């Protein structure tokens, strides 16, 4: 996975996880540290980072016991805080980019922390429960190190860690992207999902269906959906029984590919076998409760067999369903640029769970000034949102409309309405605000069923 190179090459970033309940005695401070990146940093340096963070947390808690500090902006560094579980903190220290003095997207970075945590929890359960299981902390450390370094390797471009920056201002980490389907296709998908869930034999199965990298159907809770979706989009490879397998995260040390991953559901903390099957562009993920299967891997292979027979094997009439669904979705699928709207570069977020954006390749065409302006605007909106939420608890999602003219003359626009957010960059809009506002209106009516239309 090339992690050695990450360790040495990234002085720009530090990431640590520590438990405030541990190491409270003098001389036992090291016990707090559950994870530190880069790992080869001297303990003294590690402890000083953690010491500073802890100090700040303790201090800010005096004023805001429920939500302690979120970020510290120093001259050359940003410290991003995330309380993953109670008293377990994740802190990311990022060097500020020299070329553009603009603050990097703190919110995006916090979402990175959130994501890595939710993925860890998905496969290993909560850190707290693992610490309770094995109080020395050796177990959790041995799990966290390979897990997070592997996760970080995804950000590795050449030898440099490329963390979310203003370039990524038109995407939203921690949301799912959905495929838009017509009613008929949707019914076919549902029919397939139901047959699938029922064919596994137990009633409490869950499923997730993806087409390409887009979500088609889920019966999981929103949080679990996001975690699994994130994982599914990140990586699979095909196992020898036709089901997909994953090499690292699912299994314990020295794993074999045939071991079926077990995941934890967030709400119920139920343990589920994760079986994924792929037919062309269609991926089906089925979660089967571990408790419902008697003799482990052996019993599971029986269930898999059953599912294969019912849904996936093409010689069985019922399994034509999968074929038919794949065909139908392929027919309706507009390709990679399906959701591109010419003239617009946009990001649409619904309830912080579902997002849709201009394809990355199209966003790349934007000028740096536009992106920087949008990055700044997003930060403003996030602050505004937080301010509103804390002031009145009932109505967090009020309406908001901001139009900014960037240095290069582009219009950078944000609108929120009842939990939905729309961000947009219009580089080719003419001089007037009216024109820009008109373009948003058109977009809203056409693609958002008028949610953002004001009057």
């Amino acid at each position, binding site marked *: 996975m090339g992690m050695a190179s990450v360790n040495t090459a990234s002085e720009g970033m530090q990431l640590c996880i520590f438990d405030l309940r541990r190491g409270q005695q003098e001389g036992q401070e090291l016990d707090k540290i559950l994870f530190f990146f880069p790992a080869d940093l001297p303990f003294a340096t590690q402890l000083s980072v953690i010491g500073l963070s802890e100090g700040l947390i303790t201090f800010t808690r005096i004023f805001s016991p429920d939500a302690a500090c979120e970020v510290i902006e120093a001259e050359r560094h940003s410290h991003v805080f995330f309380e993953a579980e109670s008293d377990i903190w994740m802190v990311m220290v990022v060097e500020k980019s020299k070329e553009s003095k603009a603050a990097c997207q703190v919110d995006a970075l916090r979402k990175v922390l959130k994501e890595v945590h939710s993925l860890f929890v998905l496969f290993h359960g909560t850190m707290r429960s693992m610490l309770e299981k094995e109080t020395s902390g050796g177990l959790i450390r041995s799990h966290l190190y390979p897990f997070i370094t592997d996760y970080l390797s995804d950000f590795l471009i050449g030898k440099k860690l490329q963390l979310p920056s203003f370039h990524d201002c038109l995407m939203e980490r921690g949301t799912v992207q959905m495929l838009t*389907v017509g*009613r*008929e296709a*949707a*019914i*076919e998908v*549902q*029919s397939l999902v*139901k*047959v699938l*869930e*029922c*064919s596994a034999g137990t*009633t*409490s199965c869950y499923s997730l269906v993806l087409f390409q990298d887009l979500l088609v*159907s*889920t*019966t*999981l*809770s*929103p949080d679990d*959906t996001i975690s699994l979706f994130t994982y599914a989009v990140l990586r699979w490879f095909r196992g020898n029984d036709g089901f997909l397998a994953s090499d690292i995260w699912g299994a314990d040390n020295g794993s074999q590919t045939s071991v079926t991953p077990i995941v934890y559901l967030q709400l119920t903390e139920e343990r589920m076998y994760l079986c994924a099957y792929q037919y062309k562009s269609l991926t089906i993920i089925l979660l089967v409760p571990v408790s419902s299967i008697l003799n482990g891997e052996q019993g599971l292979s029986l269930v898999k067999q059953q599912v294969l027979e*019912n849904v996936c094997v093409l010689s069985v009439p*019922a399994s034509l369903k999968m074929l038919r669904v794949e065909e139908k979705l392929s027919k309706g699928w507009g390709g990679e640029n399906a959701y591109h709207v010419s003239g617009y570069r946009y990001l649409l977020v619904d*309830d912080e769970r579902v997002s849709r954006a201009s394809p990355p390749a199209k966003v790349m065409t934007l000028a740096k000034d536009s992106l920087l302006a949008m990055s700044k605007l997003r930060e403003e909106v996030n602050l505004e949102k937080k301010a509103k939420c804390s002031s009145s608890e*009932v*109505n967090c999602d*009020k*309406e908001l409309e901001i139009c900014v003219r960037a240095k290069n003359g582009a219009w950078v626009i944000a609108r929120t*309405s*009842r*939990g939905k957010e729309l961000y947009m960059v219009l580089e080719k809009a003419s001089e007037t605000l009216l024109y820009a506002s008109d373009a948003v209106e058109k977009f809203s009516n056409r693609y958002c*069923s*008028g*949610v953002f239309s*004001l*009057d």
Partner: protein
Amino acid sequence: MKERNTTSTLKRILVNCSSQAKEYGGCVAKKVPEVERDMCLKEFLALKNCMQNVCLTSVFCYIKNFSMSANASSSQLTVGLSGSGGLSHAYVQYPPLKCNLPGSRGLYYDDANKLLLSPTSDQVFSWKTVPFSPHVAATADYINEGPVLSIRYSLDAKSIAVHRSNQEIQFFQRETRETFTHMCKSESESILGFFWTDCPVCDLVVVKTSGLDLLTVSFTSKSVNLVETKKLSVNWYVYTHGSRLVLLASGMQCKTLTGFQLSSVGIVRLPRFEMVMAKSDANSKPVLAAEDVFIITVYGRIYCLQIDRVAMQLHSYRFYRDAVVQQGSLPMFSSKISVSVVDNVLLVHQVDARVSILYDIFEDSRAPISAPLPLLLRGLPQSHTGRPVNVGESLDRNSSNHELMFYGDDWTFLVPDLICDVASKSVWKIHLDLEVISSSSSEVPSNLEFLQRRKLEASKTKQLCLAITRAFILERRPVTMVAKAIDVLVSSYSHSVKTCSNLKETKVDEASASVGTNASNSSRSAKDESRVGVGDKSFNLSASDSDDQSREIDSRDLQKSGKENLLGAESSRGEVQSSSLHTQQLGLGNNQLNANNSERQDSQLTSPAISPDEMYSCVFVPVGEEIVGDPSYLVAIIVEFLRSTNSEKIKVRPNIYVFTIQLLVRYERFAELSLLIINKVLEPSKEVAMQLLESGHQNPQMRKLALDMLRQLSLHHDYVTLLVQDGCYLEALRYARKHKVTSVRPSLFLEAALASKDSQHLAAVLRFFSDFIAGFRNTPEYQDYFRILNEMNTGLAV
């Protein structure tokens, strides 16, 4: 309770006779396709015996249970028997229609008018058999003294023709009693028979040894006019009015047949064809007799069944406009065979074996739809036995009596569904017991298909289908299997909706047709043209026969005019009458008045098709009440139902969507629910939105979906009201202005603004309404809030 008893009886049969059934089945399987005479007879008789025994004992059990649970009065026992107590796929209902008259000179059946005729020395008595009622009074008409070979009323029922001798047919006008005689011209030919026709060119067809004479009959000139002659040497003929088809046999073996169809659209001559006759040895040449050939009409198609005594097979042929195609053969277990058609089900009576075998030849399947069982007698009152002491004993006596009588030599099977017992001069109508037939089938989808094709007793069949579907779901059968069953029901409904308009047309046209036949002959042609394609029972199928359209041979015989066949309409009308008759019988036999009413209401039904609404109220809702725990199975079934209706393009009412939402909400499956809403699997409607709103208490996401739905449906008033409720009164105002919503009371907005304790907002809202609604400034409301606003402002100032 009834149903359960029936099922358990059937199970008992299957359990008790399994070894016999296996032996018989195994034996047949070994010999197919070479089917021989008395093939597996031993095994068959063993099975039959076993079945009959189990039947009888189960009937005893049933009656005993019944009399123990309810007060054992004789009338209730009768009900028990006439219900589903006796177990058979087909039965006749006591009492029969008695045609016993002093001086009767035989019994004749006029199948065109559905009349039973019994001539005495100078009169002819007639009984209507449609609707079939044992209490129908005979009508008498005067005819002259003389021999009677056959007798038929004209189609307008104004005149009577009597076949007197080989040379002579005599006509009587009923009203005027005028009469004249038609004689054969030549001595060398003789009249074999005759029938009335609704063919446009003639009224009467006389079949002679030399061919057909097509005649018009005129009482004004007291003569018949020869319109056309079809020259042909004829040994014997068969004709049914239902098919309008006459088959003429010629040749040494009488196996060369020529057919003519004389229907309201004209005359069609069929290609001559040869019947298949096996030879026992090289020299013997068996001769085909008229009794060996049956014309039957099933699903509007015309078939001919022919007995091959040497091969012990019943060959079937199907008639097309320009071809006759052999369809395969049914086995014979008896040298005497007769057939009936009840509700498009073919009954082959193996008279010597005293059983009847049922076939549904809709899809050219020659597999019987149930085991060979004897016809049963139902509804025999106990007083007839004279000894109501021991239930078991008396029943025993009865059944043995009737078994002696059943399938006796005196039985004549009349087309399509009557049995005439010549000895006792009584006529029985054959009924199917669909409950028994369907409970013997384990394949639910195909069983439902079979039931959906039944048109008689549509409401009963529909209830049966609903019960079967409910049970199927409650047994938690695999979703794919239930989906198949649902597909059957939905496509049947879709089919019935599509043909519904046609049916109405048919009925209207029929009315005009009857006017036409009442008019004089000269004016009939024009009128008859108006019913072209209605009364036509030509060789083509009804257009609705979609399966067959794909088959090459049928594409040829689809007549443009003959799209609709009369049969559907006829039988549906018959159904209405017969079922109301059925209720009358019930009413006479006992005091089930309530049952009477409901059945009469439903008797208008012409098809057992189940609408989405009925699926909702009679399947999903009751199943939802019974299913405990996780609803995902039921939701899966509903999704399958929606898939099915969507593919058939049938609209579904919102109630089923609302029901689905309730199911999912009850188990907090919000992720699934919002997906179903977003993808419009549950189509948007006000009802759906309101249900979502209700669930909004548990999950705010649902409220959002509901609001989005209201906005998309342009239900402005509700949307604005809800926005105000959510405290978004400014947004609501903007929306109200844009969509000109004036129906929401200003006070709602003002109250919301006041509640937010923001004097600027309150001022803005007040100002808005002053501008938006003319004369708002003069309302007390305005003044109230204006005062409040002032107080707020002064309060601030202080």
